């Protein structure tokens, strides 16, 4: 029997109503996340990639229950959120690190107080919480004697992000959601923080959800990758399958949009034209068909579901791979 996943999201939906229409009526609905399902196995790292408006940050916020889904279920360790496990307990076990290291720290709290704040609210004595804060600072590579008394503005971006990681560790969580956590850092500092994250995962047996627009970083960090487009999962699979044999035309386009790093083989032709469409009125059928070079008549009419491919857990939402779809193409060239 396959062991139950540590975390499971089933058919998550989150729509945001746009206000400001006539007499306060709604001007439309942003379909930020539309029917997204995925599992997390204990100890793995799931990378989520996609462009702005694809719903990756909304997915992150749904995972930690910062916002509630309109439909769909979340289970952690086999316990259904809202029934067998409270949001409060879920948030203790799933922590999040945001992109903006400065905005996510209270400017009036020292680093020690920032880390100790959560544990104190949850009933730890001030002395214990302070001790814990010092241990965690040490663990993320910041000498407690130098850094415990400092305020956020006295730290560099990389140091602040280390503090945010320490704060996320304060509840000994099982899962950490990293939403573009290293994107704002300079490359040389980013590498240090990525090393830290890898060390912490190995030491503490953590499970990561790693969200980034940088495909090189995602490849380095992840075991599995989920590619999102306009609120839906386009493709999900092992990092090897996604990077070496992308099955969705969008995944293939994302990969070939990466700079080549070879002056003799520069990119000559952009893989896609135009910007990602607005998630307020996503195209009918396959949401990618308006930008897809391989699109056929069926693509604008019927929405493709996720279809299992050979290979471990590899799934793709594209008519090309669905038998009997009558799509003229049979394969996707990377």
């Amino acid at each position, binding site marked *: 029997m396959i062991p139950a996943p540590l975390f499971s999201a089933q058919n998550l939906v989150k729509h945001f109503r746009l206000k400001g229409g006539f007499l306060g009526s709604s001007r439309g609905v942003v379909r930020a996340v539309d029917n997204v399902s995925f599992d997390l196995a204990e100890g793995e790292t799931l990378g989520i990639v996609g462009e702005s408006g694809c719903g990756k940050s909304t997915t992150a916020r749904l995972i930690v229950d910062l916002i509630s889904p309109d439909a769909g279920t979340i289970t952690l360790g086999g316990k259904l959120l809202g029934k067998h496990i409270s949001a409060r307990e879920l948030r203790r076990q799933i922590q999040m690190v945001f992109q903006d290291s400065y905005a996510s720290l209270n400017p009036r709290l020292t680093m020690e107080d920032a880390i100790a704040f959560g544990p104190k609210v949850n009933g730890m004595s001030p002395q214990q919480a302070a001790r814990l804060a010092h241990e965690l600072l040490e663990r993320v590579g910041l000498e407690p004697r130098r850094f415990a008394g400092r305020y956020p503005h006295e730290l560099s971006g990389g140091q602040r992000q280390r503090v945010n990681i320490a704060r996320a560790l304060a509840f000994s969580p099982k899962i950490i959601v990293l939403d573009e956590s290293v994107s704002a850092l*300079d490359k040389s500092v980013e*590498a240090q923080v990525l090393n830290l994250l890898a060390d912490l995962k190995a030491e503490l047996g953590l499970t990561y959800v790693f969200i980034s627009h940088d495909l090189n970083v995602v490849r380095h960090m992840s075991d599995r990758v989920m590619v999102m487009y306009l609120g839906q999962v386009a493709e999900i699979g092992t990092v090897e399958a996604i990077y070496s044999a992308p099955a969705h035309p969008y995944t293939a386009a994302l990969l070939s949009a990466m*700079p080549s790093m*070879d002056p003799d083989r520069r990119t000559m032709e*952009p893989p896609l034209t135009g*910007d990602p469409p607005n998630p307020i009125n996503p195209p009918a059928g396959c949401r990618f068909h308006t930008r897809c070079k391989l699109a056929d008549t069926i693509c604008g009419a019927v929405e493709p579901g996720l279809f299992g491919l050979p290979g471990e857990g590899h799934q793709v939402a594209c008519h090309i791979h669905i038998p009997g779809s009558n799509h003229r193409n049979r394969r996707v060239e990377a």
Partner: protein
Amino acid sequence: MSAPLLDMENLTVRFHGERTVHAVNGVSLTLQSGETLGILGESGSGKSVTLKTLLRLLPENRAEIGGTLRVDGHDVLALQGRALADHRGRTVSMVFQDPMLALDPVYRIGDQIAETVMRHEGCSRSEAMARALDMFKNVQMPSPERRLRAYPHEMSGGMRQRAMIALALACRPKLLLADEPTTALDATVQIQILLLLRDLQRQFGMGMIFVTHDIGVVVEVSDRVAVMYAGEIIETGTVHDIIRDARHPYTKGLLAANLHGAVKGARLNAISGAPPSLERKPNACSFAPRCPVARETCASELPPNVAVGTQRQVRCVLAQE
């Protein structure tokens, strides 16, 4: 060889205020017309300040600029009044990172481009609008006639960046400065804008300086690369030299940190520490405190600028061997 389009010698920029910041410390650069130079560096390395100096955009009362700077034969640091206004937008033009901040939100895009053309070329409004339309076609703007009448907020990020490129190129500048023009864009849009800039640079035969923190972007557009650290150029060479055979330990570290082809799960060869604060003028190698191969002399003396071959220079004692 003809006189270079840009000749910058020993440029220094120092900001005064509550504390002094030595932002640029002796930068020398040349650029031929028709050539693209990529300036690669992290935040605080002085790359944007160097670029802004070329347009004299730094606050006059707080920025102390030294050295010489000639563009197309004119001494840029001596320009005043009308001559300076002619220089900006006509001889040298710039594309900024955030087009939403650089474009005026209350004027239609077409009017903004036409205003620039009328000011610099003294032509009529209809001629200027025709030029704006022409530029929109050059930047492959979808439905160009309609978009001339659009306001910046009515466009997507990629279209706004195309509009800004059209604005920057409307008066056919000899030198185009691009300050992280694709950093705020999505990956599939970034590559479109990069290829567009590369094509327009060739088509117009202008010089281009492209500032970015992303090595991959530099490789796509540049002929030559200058790597900046702590207000100095620490290595310069052709894009082949830098990618295939980096000599400075900092450049090597940056290449490793880019993760291109990094093995999954392997430890990254990260550069430790953080860049210096620049409160004092450097009197030793600025990178020495973070350098894995630093020697005693690195912390006490300024490193030599070693010429390696004809086209490249490395500011490191190790390059002498």
